[in-house]
Protein backbone atom coordinates (compact mmCIF):
# COMPACT_ATOMS: atom_id res chain seq x y z
CA UNK A 1 0.00 0.00 0.00
CA UNK A 2 1.36 3.38 -0.98
CA UNK A 3 0.18 6.95 -1.14
CA UNK A 4 -1.10 6.24 -4.62
CA UNK A 5 -3.26 3.35 -3.39
CA UNK A 6 -4.83 5.56 -0.77
CA UNK A 7 -5.41 8.38 -3.22
CA UNK A 8 -7.06 5.98 -5.64
CA UNK A 9 -9.28 4.75 -2.81
CA UNK A 10 -10.40 8.35 -2.41
CA UNK A 11 -10.36 8.54 1.36
CA UNK A 12 -8.05 8.30 4.33
CA UNK A 13 -9.16 5.75 6.93
CA UNK A 14 -7.84 6.72 10.37
CA UNK A 15 -7.83 4.54 13.47
CA UNK A 16 -8.43 6.75 16.48
CA UNK A 17 -9.54 6.41 20.07
CA UNK A 18 -13.25 6.83 20.52
CA UNK A 19 -13.46 7.37 24.24
CA UNK A 20 -10.32 9.07 25.41
CA UNK A 21 -11.03 12.75 25.80
CA UNK A 22 -9.38 15.03 25.03
CA UNK A 23 -7.11 12.92 22.80
CA UNK A 24 -9.74 11.26 20.70
CA UNK A 25 -13.42 10.84 21.45
CA UNK A 26 -16.83 10.73 19.84
CA UNK A 27 -18.94 13.63 21.03
CA UNK A 28 -22.63 13.28 21.87
CA UNK A 29 -23.58 14.22 18.32
CA UNK A 30 -21.65 11.14 17.24
CA UNK A 31 -18.86 13.22 15.67
CA UNK A 32 -15.23 12.30 16.19
CA UNK A 33 -13.33 15.05 18.01
CA UNK A 34 -10.15 15.65 19.94
CA UNK A 35 -6.47 16.41 19.54
CA UNK A 36 -5.79 13.36 17.36
CA UNK A 37 -8.84 14.07 15.23
CA UNK A 38 -7.59 17.57 14.48
CA UNK A 39 -4.16 16.26 13.53
CA UNK A 40 -5.71 13.63 11.29
CA UNK A 41 -7.90 16.26 9.62
CA UNK A 42 -4.81 18.37 8.89
CA UNK A 43 -3.20 15.31 7.33
CA UNK A 44 -6.27 14.68 5.21
CA UNK A 45 -6.29 18.31 4.12
CA UNK A 46 -2.68 18.11 3.06
CA UNK A 47 -3.32 14.94 1.06
CA UNK A 48 -6.49 16.42 -0.35
CA UNK A 49 -8.56 13.45 0.87
CA UNK A 50 -11.65 13.20 3.08
CA UNK A 51 -10.96 11.51 6.41
CA UNK A 52 -12.96 8.53 7.69
CA UNK A 53 -12.54 7.81 11.40
CA UNK A 54 -12.70 4.28 12.82
CA UNK A 55 -13.00 4.52 16.60
CA UNK A 56 -10.91 1.82 18.27
CA UNK A 57 -10.43 0.77 21.84
CA UNK A 58 -7.02 0.51 23.45
CA UNK A 59 -6.94 -3.23 22.99
CA UNK A 60 -7.70 -3.32 19.29
CA UNK A 61 -5.73 -0.39 17.94
CA UNK A 62 -2.89 -2.53 16.66
CA UNK A 63 -5.07 -5.35 15.31
CA UNK A 64 -7.15 -2.79 13.41
CA UNK A 65 -4.02 -1.49 11.74
CA UNK A 66 -2.27 -4.75 10.91
CA UNK A 67 -5.39 -6.36 9.45
CA UNK A 68 -5.72 -3.36 7.14
CA UNK A 69 -8.96 -2.04 8.55
CA UNK A 70 -7.34 1.39 8.84
CA UNK A 71 -4.59 3.11 6.88
CA UNK A 72 -3.01 4.89 9.80
CA UNK A 73 -3.35 5.23 13.56
CA UNK A 74 -3.61 8.60 15.24
CA UNK A 75 -4.63 6.82 18.38
CA UNK A 76 -2.64 8.25 21.26
CA UNK A 77 -0.03 5.58 20.68
CA UNK A 78 2.79 5.89 23.20
CA UNK A 79 6.07 5.08 21.49
CA UNK A 80 7.69 1.96 22.95
CA UNK A 81 10.31 -0.41 21.54
CA UNK A 82 7.95 -3.40 21.96
CA UNK A 83 5.19 -1.78 19.96
CA UNK A 84 7.74 -0.79 17.35
CA UNK A 85 8.12 -4.49 16.58
CA UNK A 86 4.47 -4.72 15.51
CA UNK A 87 3.97 -1.38 13.81
CA UNK A 88 5.98 1.39 12.21
CA UNK A 89 6.02 4.59 14.26
CA UNK A 90 6.34 8.05 12.74
CA UNK A 91 8.22 10.93 14.32
CA UNK A 92 6.56 12.00 17.57
CA UNK A 93 3.80 14.62 17.26
CA UNK A 94 2.64 14.88 20.89
CA UNK A 95 4.00 14.45 24.39
CA UNK A 96 2.33 13.14 27.47
CA UNK A 97 3.55 13.48 31.03
CA UNK A 98 3.02 10.36 33.03
CA UNK A 99 2.60 11.01 36.73
CA UNK A 100 1.20 9.62 39.94
CA UNK A 101 -1.79 11.38 41.53
CA UNK A 102 -3.23 10.83 45.00
CA UNK A 103 -5.19 12.63 47.70
CA UNK A 104 -3.22 15.34 49.47
CA UNK A 105 -2.73 13.42 52.71
CA UNK A 106 -1.45 10.23 51.08
CA UNK A 107 2.12 9.49 52.19
CA UNK A 108 3.89 9.03 48.88
CA UNK A 109 7.11 10.90 48.24
CA UNK A 110 9.28 8.30 46.52
CA UNK A 111 8.42 5.43 44.18
CA UNK A 112 9.17 3.01 47.05
CA UNK A 113 6.18 4.43 48.97
CA UNK A 114 3.78 3.06 46.37
CA UNK A 115 4.20 -0.36 47.96
CA UNK A 116 1.89 0.65 50.81
CA UNK A 117 -1.08 1.49 48.61
CA UNK A 118 -3.31 0.11 45.91
CA UNK A 119 -2.47 1.91 42.68
CA UNK A 120 -4.97 2.17 39.82
CA UNK A 121 -4.08 2.53 36.15
CA UNK A 122 -5.85 2.27 32.82
CA UNK A 123 -4.88 -1.07 31.33
CA UNK A 124 -2.28 -0.98 28.55
CA UNK A 125 -1.91 2.78 28.88
CA UNK A 126 1.34 4.67 29.19
CA UNK A 127 0.61 5.01 32.92
CA UNK A 128 0.32 1.24 33.18
CA UNK A 129 3.75 0.80 31.63
CA UNK A 130 5.34 3.49 33.78
CA UNK A 131 3.84 2.42 37.09
CA UNK A 132 4.60 -1.23 36.41
CA UNK A 133 8.22 -0.34 35.69
CA UNK A 134 8.83 1.97 38.66
CA UNK A 135 6.73 0.44 41.43
CA UNK A 136 8.59 -1.84 43.86
CA UNK A 137 8.06 -5.59 43.71
CA UNK A 138 4.78 -6.59 45.35
CA UNK A 139 2.90 -3.34 44.84
CA UNK A 140 -0.84 -3.80 44.32
CA UNK A 141 -1.58 -2.52 40.84
CA UNK A 142 -5.22 -2.58 39.69
CA UNK A 143 -5.74 -2.28 35.97
CA UNK A 144 -9.04 -0.87 34.75
CA UNK A 145 -10.50 -0.73 31.27
CA UNK A 146 -10.18 3.03 30.82
CA UNK A 147 -9.44 6.41 32.40
CA UNK A 148 -12.99 6.94 33.63
CA UNK A 149 -13.04 3.72 35.62
CA UNK A 150 -9.58 4.46 36.99
CA UNK A 151 -10.58 7.92 38.18
CA UNK A 152 -13.81 6.55 39.61
CA UNK A 153 -11.81 3.94 41.51
CA UNK A 154 -9.74 6.69 43.12
CA UNK A 155 -12.80 8.78 43.92
CA UNK A 156 -14.63 5.86 45.50
CA UNK A 157 -11.59 4.80 47.50
CA UNK A 158 -11.04 1.47 45.76
CA UNK A 159 -7.46 2.61 45.11
CA UNK A 160 -5.42 5.25 46.94
CA UNK A 161 -3.39 6.55 44.02
CA UNK A 162 -3.55 6.42 40.25
CA UNK A 163 -1.03 6.40 37.50
CA UNK A 164 -2.12 9.46 35.52
CA UNK A 165 -1.48 11.53 32.47
CA UNK A 166 -1.28 15.29 32.40
CA UNK A 167 -5.06 15.65 32.26
CA UNK A 168 -6.05 13.72 35.38
CA UNK A 169 -5.46 16.37 38.07
CA UNK A 170 -7.87 18.86 36.55
CA UNK A 171 -10.48 16.12 36.19
CA UNK A 172 -10.15 14.99 39.78
CA UNK A 173 -10.14 18.46 41.20
CA UNK A 174 -13.28 19.27 39.28
CA UNK A 175 -15.20 16.76 41.35
CA UNK A 176 -13.37 17.47 44.64
CA UNK A 177 -11.55 20.80 44.37
CA UNK A 178 -8.07 20.83 45.83
CA UNK A 179 -8.25 17.31 47.18
CA UNK A 180 -5.75 15.66 44.82
CA UNK A 181 -2.20 16.47 43.83
CA UNK A 182 0.72 15.33 41.67
CA UNK A 183 2.86 12.99 43.79
CA UNK A 184 5.49 11.62 41.41
CA UNK A 185 6.65 12.37 37.87
CA UNK A 186 7.52 9.24 35.93
CA UNK A 187 8.30 9.99 32.32
CA UNK A 188 7.56 12.25 29.50
CA UNK A 189 6.29 10.03 26.84
CA UNK A 190 5.83 10.69 23.16
CA UNK A 191 3.01 9.72 20.82
CA UNK A 192 3.54 8.89 17.19
CA UNK A 193 1.37 7.94 14.27
CA UNK A 194 1.37 4.23 13.39
CA UNK A 195 1.55 2.55 9.99
CA UNK A 196 2.12 -1.05 8.97
CA UNK A 197 5.69 -2.34 8.99
CA UNK A 198 7.64 -2.01 5.78
CA UNK A 199 5.50 0.67 4.12
CA UNK A 200 8.43 2.94 3.31
CA UNK A 201 6.81 5.51 1.08
CA UNK A 202 3.71 5.89 3.27
CA UNK A 203 5.88 6.38 6.38
CA UNK A 204 7.88 9.06 4.60
CA UNK A 205 4.66 10.87 3.65
CA UNK A 206 3.56 10.86 7.28
CA UNK A 207 6.91 12.11 8.59
CA UNK A 208 6.95 14.91 6.03
CA UNK A 209 3.48 15.95 7.20
CA UNK A 210 4.58 16.06 10.83
CA UNK A 211 7.59 18.15 9.99
CA UNK A 212 5.34 20.56 8.11
CA UNK A 213 2.87 21.16 10.93
CA UNK A 214 5.66 21.56 13.46
CA UNK A 215 7.23 24.22 11.23
CA UNK A 216 4.10 26.16 10.16
CA UNK A 217 2.57 26.50 13.65
CA UNK A 218 -0.48 24.29 12.98
CA UNK A 219 0.60 21.82 15.66
CA UNK A 220 0.98 24.61 18.20
CA UNK A 221 -2.56 25.77 17.44
CA UNK A 222 -4.00 22.32 18.00
CA UNK A 223 -1.99 22.00 21.23
CA UNK A 224 -3.40 25.28 22.49
CA UNK A 225 -6.95 24.23 21.68
CA UNK A 226 -6.94 20.89 23.50
CA UNK A 227 -4.28 21.20 26.18
CA UNK A 228 -4.00 24.85 26.87
CA UNK A 229 -0.23 24.99 26.51
CA UNK A 230 2.52 24.97 23.91
CA UNK A 231 4.16 21.87 22.45
CA UNK A 232 7.48 20.83 24.05
CA UNK A 233 10.75 20.07 22.29
CA UNK A 234 10.55 16.75 20.47
CA UNK A 235 13.55 14.35 20.44
CA UNK A 236 15.12 13.41 17.11
CA UNK A 237 15.50 9.78 18.02
CA UNK A 238 14.27 7.31 20.63
CA UNK A 239 16.12 4.19 21.77
CA UNK A 240 14.88 1.13 19.88
CA UNK A 241 12.16 3.01 17.97
CA UNK A 242 13.02 3.82 14.38
CA UNK A 243 10.96 6.70 12.96
CA UNK A 244 11.62 5.58 9.41
CA UNK A 245 11.63 2.35 7.47
CA UNK A 246 15.21 1.19 7.15
Amino acid at each position, binding site marked *: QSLADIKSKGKLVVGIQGDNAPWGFVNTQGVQEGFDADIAKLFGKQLGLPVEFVPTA*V*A*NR*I*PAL*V*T*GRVDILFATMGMYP*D*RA*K*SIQFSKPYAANDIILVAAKGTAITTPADMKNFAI*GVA*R*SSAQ*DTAVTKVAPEGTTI*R*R*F*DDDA*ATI*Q*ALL*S*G*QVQAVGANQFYPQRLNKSQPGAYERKLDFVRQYNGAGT*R*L*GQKEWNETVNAFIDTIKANGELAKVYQTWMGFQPPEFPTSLEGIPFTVS
Partner: protein
Amino acid sequence: MGYTLDFSVVIDALPSLLWGCLATIGLAQSGMSLALVIGVAGVVARGSNQRWLRGLVIGFVELIRNTPFLVQIFFLFFALPHIGLTLNPTVTAILALGLNGGAYAIEIIRGGVQSIDKGQIEAGLALGLHKGQVFRMIVLKPALRAIYPSLTGQFIMLTLTSSICSAIAAYELTSVAQRIESDTFRSFEVYFTITGLYLAISWLMMTGFSVFSRRYFNYPTR
Protein backbone atom coordinates in the same frame (compact mmCIF):
# COMPACT_ATOMS: atom_id res chain seq x y z
CA MET B 1 -1.44 -9.30 5.32
CA GLY B 2 2.14 -8.82 6.38
CA TYR B 3 1.33 -10.38 9.73
CA THR B 4 2.59 -13.79 10.67
CA LEU B 5 1.26 -15.61 13.66
CA ASP B 6 3.88 -16.20 16.33
CA PHE B 7 2.77 -18.19 19.31
CA SER B 8 6.16 -18.08 21.06
CA VAL B 9 5.05 -15.20 23.29
CA VAL B 10 2.04 -17.21 24.35
CA ILE B 11 4.21 -20.18 25.14
CA ASP B 12 6.49 -17.98 27.23
CA ALA B 13 3.46 -16.68 29.08
CA LEU B 14 1.93 -20.10 29.59
CA PRO B 15 2.58 -20.28 33.35
CA SER B 16 0.81 -17.00 34.00
CA LEU B 17 -2.03 -18.04 31.69
CA LEU B 18 -2.45 -21.23 33.67
CA TRP B 19 -2.52 -19.25 36.91
CA GLY B 20 -5.18 -17.14 35.23
CA CYS B 21 -7.17 -20.29 34.46
CA LEU B 22 -6.98 -21.31 38.10
CA ALA B 23 -8.10 -17.86 39.18
CA THR B 24 -11.04 -18.03 36.77
CA ILE B 25 -12.02 -21.47 38.03
CA GLY B 26 -11.73 -20.21 41.61
CA LEU B 27 -13.91 -17.18 40.90
CA ALA B 28 -16.44 -19.34 39.11
CA GLN B 29 -16.56 -21.94 41.88
CA SER B 30 -17.06 -19.36 44.61
CA GLY B 31 -19.63 -17.53 42.51
CA MET B 32 -21.52 -20.76 41.88
CA SER B 33 -21.57 -21.77 45.52
CA LEU B 34 -22.94 -18.37 46.45
CA ALA B 35 -25.43 -18.60 43.57
CA LEU B 36 -26.65 -21.96 44.78
CA VAL B 37 -27.19 -20.67 48.32
CA ILE B 38 -29.00 -17.60 46.99
CA GLY B 39 -30.98 -19.83 44.66
CA VAL B 40 -32.28 -22.18 47.35
CA ALA B 41 -32.88 -19.37 49.85
CA GLY B 42 -34.63 -17.36 47.14
CA VAL B 43 -36.93 -20.25 46.27
CA VAL B 44 -37.88 -20.66 49.91
CA ALA B 45 -38.46 -16.91 50.25
CA ARG B 46 -40.40 -16.85 46.99
CA GLY B 47 -42.76 -19.44 48.42
CA SER B 48 -43.25 -17.69 51.75
CA ASN B 49 -46.59 -16.18 52.64
CA GLN B 50 -44.88 -12.88 53.43
CA ARG B 51 -45.90 -10.65 50.55
CA TRP B 52 -43.00 -8.21 50.82
CA LEU B 53 -40.48 -11.06 50.83
CA ARG B 54 -41.94 -12.54 47.67
CA GLY B 55 -41.93 -9.09 46.08
CA LEU B 56 -38.32 -8.57 47.06
CA VAL B 57 -37.24 -11.82 45.46
CA ILE B 58 -39.19 -11.15 42.28
CA GLY B 59 -37.77 -7.64 42.04
CA PHE B 60 -34.24 -8.91 42.56
CA VAL B 61 -34.61 -11.59 39.91
CA GLU B 62 -36.06 -9.19 37.35
CA LEU B 63 -33.44 -6.54 38.01
CA ILE B 64 -30.57 -8.95 37.56
CA ARG B 65 -31.97 -10.77 34.57
CA ASN B 66 -32.70 -7.64 32.61
CA THR B 67 -29.47 -5.68 33.01
CA PRO B 68 -26.00 -6.54 31.72
CA PHE B 69 -23.49 -8.06 34.08
CA LEU B 70 -21.05 -5.25 33.40
CA VAL B 71 -23.47 -2.70 34.81
CA GLN B 72 -24.06 -4.87 37.86
CA ILE B 73 -20.42 -5.34 38.70
CA PHE B 74 -19.66 -1.63 38.19
CA PHE B 75 -22.42 -0.82 40.55
CA LEU B 76 -21.11 -3.08 43.28
CA PHE B 77 -17.57 -1.87 42.84
CA PHE B 78 -18.12 1.84 42.60
CA ALA B 79 -21.34 2.40 44.52
CA LEU B 80 -20.90 0.24 47.60
CA PRO B 81 -17.92 2.33 48.86
CA HIS B 82 -20.31 5.30 49.07
CA ILE B 83 -22.21 3.46 51.78
CA GLY B 84 -18.98 2.52 53.49
CA LEU B 85 -18.52 -0.98 52.06
CA THR B 86 -15.23 -1.19 50.20
CA LEU B 87 -14.65 -4.72 48.95
CA ASN B 88 -11.57 -5.70 47.01
CA PRO B 89 -11.98 -6.64 43.33
CA THR B 90 -11.95 -10.38 43.91
CA VAL B 91 -14.60 -10.26 46.61
CA THR B 92 -16.68 -7.90 44.50
CA ALA B 93 -16.37 -10.23 41.53
CA ILE B 94 -17.50 -13.23 43.58
CA LEU B 95 -20.39 -11.23 44.98
CA ALA B 96 -21.42 -10.03 41.51
CA LEU B 97 -21.18 -13.54 40.04
CA GLY B 98 -23.07 -14.98 42.99
CA LEU B 99 -25.89 -12.45 42.76
CA ASN B 100 -26.13 -12.81 39.00
CA GLY B 101 -26.03 -16.60 39.04
CA GLY B 102 -28.34 -16.63 42.06
CA ALA B 103 -31.08 -14.76 40.23
CA TYR B 104 -31.04 -17.32 37.44
CA ALA B 105 -30.73 -20.18 39.93
CA ILE B 106 -33.88 -19.02 41.74
CA GLU B 107 -35.90 -19.28 38.55
CA ILE B 108 -34.36 -22.60 37.56
CA ILE B 109 -34.72 -24.27 40.94
CA ARG B 110 -38.25 -22.96 41.27
CA GLY B 111 -39.05 -24.61 37.97
CA GLY B 112 -37.60 -27.84 39.33
CA VAL B 113 -39.66 -27.66 42.49
CA GLN B 114 -42.78 -27.04 40.45
CA SER B 115 -41.95 -30.00 38.25
CA ILE B 116 -42.22 -32.32 41.25
CA ASP B 117 -45.49 -34.20 41.21
CA LYS B 118 -47.86 -32.71 43.76
CA GLY B 119 -48.49 -36.29 44.86
CA GLN B 120 -44.94 -36.49 46.23
CA ILE B 121 -45.60 -33.57 48.53
CA GLU B 122 -48.96 -34.96 49.56
CA ALA B 123 -47.47 -38.36 50.26
CA GLY B 124 -44.93 -36.69 52.54
CA LEU B 125 -47.58 -34.65 54.32
CA ALA B 126 -49.83 -37.68 54.66
CA LEU B 127 -46.98 -39.49 56.40
CA GLY B 128 -46.95 -36.70 58.97
CA LEU B 129 -43.83 -34.86 57.78
CA HIS B 130 -43.82 -31.07 58.05
CA LYS B 131 -43.57 -28.68 55.12
CA GLY B 132 -39.89 -27.97 55.70
CA GLN B 133 -39.06 -31.66 56.05
CA VAL B 134 -40.97 -32.42 52.86
CA PHE B 135 -38.99 -29.76 50.99
CA ARG B 136 -35.62 -30.91 52.32
CA MET B 137 -36.07 -34.66 52.23
CA ILE B 138 -38.49 -35.27 49.41
CA VAL B 139 -38.63 -32.37 46.99
CA LEU B 140 -35.11 -31.00 46.83
CA LYS B 141 -33.10 -33.88 45.42
CA PRO B 142 -35.48 -34.93 42.63
CA ALA B 143 -36.02 -31.25 41.85
CA LEU B 144 -32.29 -30.68 41.53
CA ARG B 145 -32.03 -33.73 39.35
CA ALA B 146 -34.77 -32.48 37.08
CA ILE B 147 -33.08 -29.14 36.55
CA TYR B 148 -29.49 -30.29 36.77
CA PRO B 149 -28.76 -29.76 33.06
CA SER B 150 -30.09 -26.22 33.01
CA LEU B 151 -28.47 -25.36 36.32
CA THR B 152 -25.06 -26.57 35.25
CA GLY B 153 -25.51 -24.91 31.88
CA GLN B 154 -26.13 -21.67 33.72
CA PHE B 155 -23.01 -22.24 35.77
CA ILE B 156 -20.92 -22.68 32.65
CA MET B 157 -22.35 -19.39 31.41
CA LEU B 158 -21.41 -17.85 34.74
CA THR B 159 -17.84 -19.05 34.27
CA LEU B 160 -17.69 -17.45 30.84
CA THR B 161 -19.25 -14.30 32.25
CA SER B 162 -16.42 -14.06 34.76
CA SER B 163 -14.27 -12.78 31.90
CA ILE B 164 -16.05 -9.45 32.38
CA CYS B 165 -14.66 -9.17 35.91
CA SER B 166 -11.44 -7.81 34.41
CA ALA B 167 -13.35 -4.53 34.14
CA ILE B 168 -12.93 -3.97 37.88
CA ALA B 169 -9.34 -5.17 37.84
CA ALA B 170 -10.12 -8.58 39.28
CA TYR B 171 -7.46 -11.16 38.63
CA GLU B 172 -8.65 -13.88 36.23
CA LEU B 173 -7.85 -15.35 32.83
CA THR B 174 -8.99 -12.43 30.69
CA SER B 175 -7.13 -9.87 32.75
CA VAL B 176 -4.00 -11.97 32.54
CA ALA B 177 -4.47 -12.21 28.79
CA GLN B 178 -4.96 -8.48 28.45
CA ARG B 179 -1.80 -7.94 30.45
CA ILE B 180 0.17 -10.23 28.17
CA GLU B 181 -1.33 -8.58 25.17
CA SER B 182 -0.37 -5.12 26.33
CA ASP B 183 3.16 -6.34 26.98
CA THR B 184 3.61 -8.13 23.67
CA PHE B 185 1.01 -6.64 21.31
CA ARG B 186 0.29 -10.16 20.10
CA SER B 187 -3.49 -9.80 20.19
CA PHE B 188 -4.48 -12.64 17.87
CA GLU B 189 -2.24 -15.19 19.44
CA VAL B 190 -3.39 -14.26 22.91
CA TYR B 191 -7.09 -14.24 22.08
CA PHE B 192 -6.94 -17.48 20.13
CA THR B 193 -5.16 -19.09 23.04
CA ILE B 194 -7.52 -17.97 25.75
CA THR B 195 -10.52 -18.92 23.63
CA GLY B 196 -9.06 -22.41 23.67
CA LEU B 197 -8.42 -22.19 27.39
CA TYR B 198 -12.00 -21.15 28.12
CA LEU B 199 -13.20 -24.06 26.02
CA ALA B 200 -10.98 -26.37 28.04
CA ILE B 201 -12.29 -24.93 31.31
CA SER B 202 -15.92 -25.36 30.32
CA TRP B 203 -15.24 -28.86 29.09
CA LEU B 204 -13.52 -29.67 32.38
CA MET B 205 -16.42 -28.30 34.34
CA MET B 206 -18.97 -30.22 32.30
CA THR B 207 -17.04 -33.40 32.92
CA GLY B 208 -16.94 -32.61 36.62
CA PHE B 209 -20.66 -31.91 36.66
CA SER B 210 -21.52 -35.16 34.97
CA VAL B 211 -19.27 -37.15 37.31
CA PHE B 212 -20.98 -35.50 40.25
CA SER B 213 -24.39 -36.18 38.80
CA ARG B 214 -23.61 -39.86 38.33
CA ARG B 215 -22.51 -40.04 41.96
CA TYR B 216 -25.21 -37.99 43.59
CA PHE B 217 -28.23 -38.80 41.44
CA ASN B 218 -27.48 -42.48 41.54
CA TYR B 219 -31.06 -43.65 41.72
CA PRO B 220 -32.77 -45.01 38.61
CA THR B 221 -35.70 -43.31 36.94
CA ARG B 222 -38.13 -44.66 34.42
